[in-house]
């Protein structure tokens, strides 16, 4: 890694050296990706638990930038069970979106690469290792098995095509075989009605700029649901919307999920939305998972100091506090991560071992895991009692 003169300063020479090294690394990755006719056996895998639809296993996604390597996702492990909603929370820049983009393999290449770890995707009769799957196979999976609802409905739609054409394109690409124009239109209108657009015939012929934010978000959702995906990634689907529209969209997502029995990976920084939607919650901080568990575990027994801080810093209607709690300090620089616990510098509950290496995951209960030294003792006790039992 580059030597530092002042904070964040890189000489042109150093920057060139880094980018040369980066090119070498990314070229190797790209070469591996671009091979033709990869046999299916190479990316065929087994789910560890057939009840899961996606398993992230020690995923590392790095960005090789000219200023140094950004470890955007650094060892993330969690599962998305079939028919459940998993909420991913964290501040901006903590790697929530990069995790989901790794699953879609939509990272900004060649700088962004999945360097190690596995993402296993359940396709029903078989399972794929997404990171090793070649592009042409992935194209059949994206939008079909896994689909994504993007963050900003204002920019996710193409301004020069009609709404109908944009949704039909998805259907035509994935399960349009044997469908004629009329059937495709009927299906599109059915989708628009499913997401609660009353004037579906009219909207079919409209351009995106003629719709309001909430309506556009519905169209984006309709597009994502066009092929009855097994996994829906919702990347901050309601952040740009008003509370009343947000409530409508959340209701809609919940109902649709039950209707087509798919799993949702719900990414947001709004804890209120997570509490409403999620069965399981994953809290991320600086590229790692600091705590994960069921919604009940996280909201009623938050364990990690960061989770606790996050909960306290949000004002809640009906709960009057004189002064809001605010987490001191700021997120460490993603290029130069410390080698101790990333949260130590901002933590008010530090204990002696915190200066040691990054804490590993501790099991508090069967569903609740946390990466914090404060729970090492509790976990040891739990383990010993389990052995006795």
């Amino acid at each position: 890694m580059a030597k530092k003169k002042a904070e964040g300063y890189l000489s042109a020479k150093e920057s060139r050296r880094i980018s040369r090294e980066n090119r070498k690394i990314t070229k190797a990755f790209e070469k591996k990706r671009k091979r033709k006719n990869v046999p299916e056996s190479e990316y065929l895998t087994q789910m560890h638990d057939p009840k899961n639809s996606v398993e992230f296993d020690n995923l590392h996604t790095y960005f090789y930038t000219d200023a140094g390597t950004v470890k955007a996702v650094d060892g993330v492990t969690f599962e998305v069970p079939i028919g459940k909603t998993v909420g991913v929370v964290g501040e901006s820049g903590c790697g929530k979106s990069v995790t989901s983009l790794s699953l879609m393999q939509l990272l900004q290449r060649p700088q962004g690469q999945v360097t190690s770890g596995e993402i296993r995707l359940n396709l029903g009769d078989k399972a794929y290792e997404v990171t090793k799957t070649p592009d042409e196979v992935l194209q059949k999976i994206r939008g079909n098995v896994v689909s994504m609802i993007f963050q900003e409905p204002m920019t996710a739609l193409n301004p020069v095509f009609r709404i109908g054409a944009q949704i039909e394109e998805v259907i035509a690409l994935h399960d349009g075989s044997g469908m004629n124009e009329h059937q495709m239109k009927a299906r599109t209108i059915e989708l628009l009605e499913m997401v609660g657009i009353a004037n579906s015939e009219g909207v079919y012929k409209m351009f995106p700029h003629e719709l309001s934010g909430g309506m556009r978000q519905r169209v984006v959702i309709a597009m994502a649901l066009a092929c009855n995906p097994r996994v829906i990634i919702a990347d901050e689907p309601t952040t740009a919307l008003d509370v009343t529209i947000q409530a409508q969209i959340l209701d809609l997502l919940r109902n649709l999920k039950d209707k087509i029995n798919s799993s949702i990976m719900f990414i947001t920084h709004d804890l209120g939305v997570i509490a409403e939607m999620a069965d399981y919650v994953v809290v991320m901080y600086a590229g790692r998972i600091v705590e994960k568990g069921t919604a009940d575990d996280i909201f009623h027994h938050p364990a990690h100091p960061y989770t606790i801080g996050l909960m306290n810093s949000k004002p809640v209607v009906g709960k009057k506090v004189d002064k809001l709690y605010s987490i001191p300090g700021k997120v460490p620089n993603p290029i130069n991560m410390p080698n101790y616990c990333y949260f130590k510098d901002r933590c008010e509950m530090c204990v002696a071992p915190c200066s040691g290496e990054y804490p590993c995951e501790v099991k508090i209960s069967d569903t609740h895991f946390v990466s914090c030294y404060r729970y090492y003792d509790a976990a040891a006790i739990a383990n010993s009692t389990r052995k006795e039992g």
Partner: protein
Amino acid sequence: MSENNSHLVIDNTFEPVTYDPQYILMVNNLKKYFPIKGGLIPHTIGYVKAVDGVTFNLKRGTTMGLVGESGCGKTTAGRTILRLSGEKTGGQVLFNGQEVYDLSPKEMRAMRPKMQIIFQDPFSSLSPRLPVGEIIGEAVREHNLVPKAEFDDYIDQIMDDCGLQSFHKDRYPHEFSGGQRQRICIARALALNPEFVVCDEPVSALDVSIQAQIINLLEELQQKHNLTYLFISHDLSVVEHISDTVGVMYLGSLVEYGETEDIFRNPLHPYTKALFSAIPVPDPDFKMKRIVLEGSIPSPANPPKGCKFHTRCANCMDICKVETPQQREIEPGHYVVCHLFDE
């Protein structure tokens, strides 16, 4: 011809208020319409009624929250009060008893430092070409608020108040994070030693943990300098935390207005009820009865007749479709504009 143009006539009848010294700001039936141009020879063919009759009084040293959906005219109301969006269309804005729109340009210039605004987006409201010291100090120098010799110390003091370091002075906005940029915006507004600050969604673009820092900062500064805030936001939980009084806006009008506690404990207007029921609560066991509003907000260029909310209201009566409701005081200090509360 004149009958065709009846919709262009602006109804500007209101009862003028007299100045009450306990209020720093009195807004009476404020209207701001934006003309829609059209036709072969472009002429005004209609109005977008962005702010359509807003009335409230603001006590010195308190915070009023202004909430509502996007497009309901919150921001325009804030800007019109500060005389930042051209001329008003109707109504009164009394700042310390002085009608803001009667001032000559020279007098207005002298008034400006007293009333400031913190803009919504800290990423686009700071000039990328000016160093932070200049951003904060420019207006101070223009208005000759401090002698030249004390200028540097004064800026340092303001930056320190807002949680910025003095060595940040020579840096440019792009070198700062979102939270820090918002601090710069706050410092810029406070440098002029204002009495009244419009905070236009100051925390919407920020993360939860940064949000808390900025809210705490605003509250500290309010106590220190006895500031009055008009806090515009669509985040109801933030508004409940920071405000003393709350106004709920729908389609350019204030539908309910009162003490924060009254409004949140006992919302009266059907729109307020629906809005509050939509707030997500960070508790997985909490199952609330949600009032889902049908449809979307009507166009402000062609608002519904009678009560503007009647197209989406669950308690709509016949009278709502015909007659515009008047503001009524239900409890002391708690006003609502709804036919349900007619005697």
